[in-house]
């Protein structure tokens, strides 16, 4: 059973990312690439860092939440092993990942302890009332 939950509520071209845990609450706008949309569902995920990108402030490896292997996207016929939640200021920061402003990302990321284990459940849901 996951220790933490992140909910991505999609409604049109943007959405809301919700997280509560470790004494922290996040409810903030998030974005993604409209050409590579994750199939709605639940994904056991990991707190980690990305080797391919650097944090925009510290220049260390970028903090991220990795959604695991074989995440379906589009019509569900294809999958990706490389979808993360990470910092970004709009959909242009995504080629398939979910992005949110850095301050909110770091608030959430720092509250998730420990890393290295799939203790985060990312729920991707569609619709404003979902």
């Amino acid at each position, binding site marked *: 059973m996951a220790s933490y939950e992140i909910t991505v509520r999609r409604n049109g071209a943007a959405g809301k990312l919700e997280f509560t845990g470790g004494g922290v609450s996040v409810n903030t706008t998030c974005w993604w690439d409209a*050409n*590579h949309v994750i199939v709605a569902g639940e994904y056991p995920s990991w707190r*980690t860092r*990305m*080797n391919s990108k650097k944090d925009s402030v510290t220049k260390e490896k970028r903090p991220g939440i990795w959604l695991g292997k074989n995440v379906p996207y589009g019509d569900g016929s294809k999958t990706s092993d*490389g979808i993360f939640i990470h910092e970004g200021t709009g959909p242009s*920061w995504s*080629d398939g*990942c979910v992005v949110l402003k850095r301050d909110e990302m770091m608030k959430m990321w720092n509250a998730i302890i420990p890393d290295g*284990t799939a203790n985060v459940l990312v729920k991707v849901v569609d619709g404003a009332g979902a």
Partner: protein
Amino acid sequence: MRRLARVALVVAAVLLASPAQAADRSDLLIHHLLDLDQQALFGDDYTPLAEMEAWGELYAAAREEAVADDSADRRGIKTFMLIGWIARQRADFGTIEGFNTDFKALFDARPNDVLAALADTEFMLPEMCRYLAGFFFFEDADPDKRQGFVDANTHRMERHLGEAGQAACLDAFWAVKS
């Protein structure tokens, strides 16, 4: 099938940084490209996270080696391009997002070497030119600067790629709209 054979030859030829590294790198690249079960590569240490992290470490090392590549056959640059190419084939969005920025930076630093490497690896040419275009739509970049980039590099594209290669590159470049 012929295209895949060329990919396999590139993989086999350029990964001999050192014998110990070559086996690991070759294994990771082939397994990632072909979506093979990687448990045997990690033994008792396998976890999905370890697999993802190994790929990320390979990416980071290849990026640094490409920047410093002084090999006669430009294997460091070719290896890095291959990783970006594989990322697109496998819809590895996290790697694609990194490559968007890193490949453009490599090109800006070493345009003649990158184009010469592309001339040797034609199967990667369209995808790499799409990446160069994609940079201008990514993060805070300005799509209006694409023409200036092309104007600054079109002469060396023709010199290294020939007319046909230059045309193929620019076709792929301008086909990217977002």
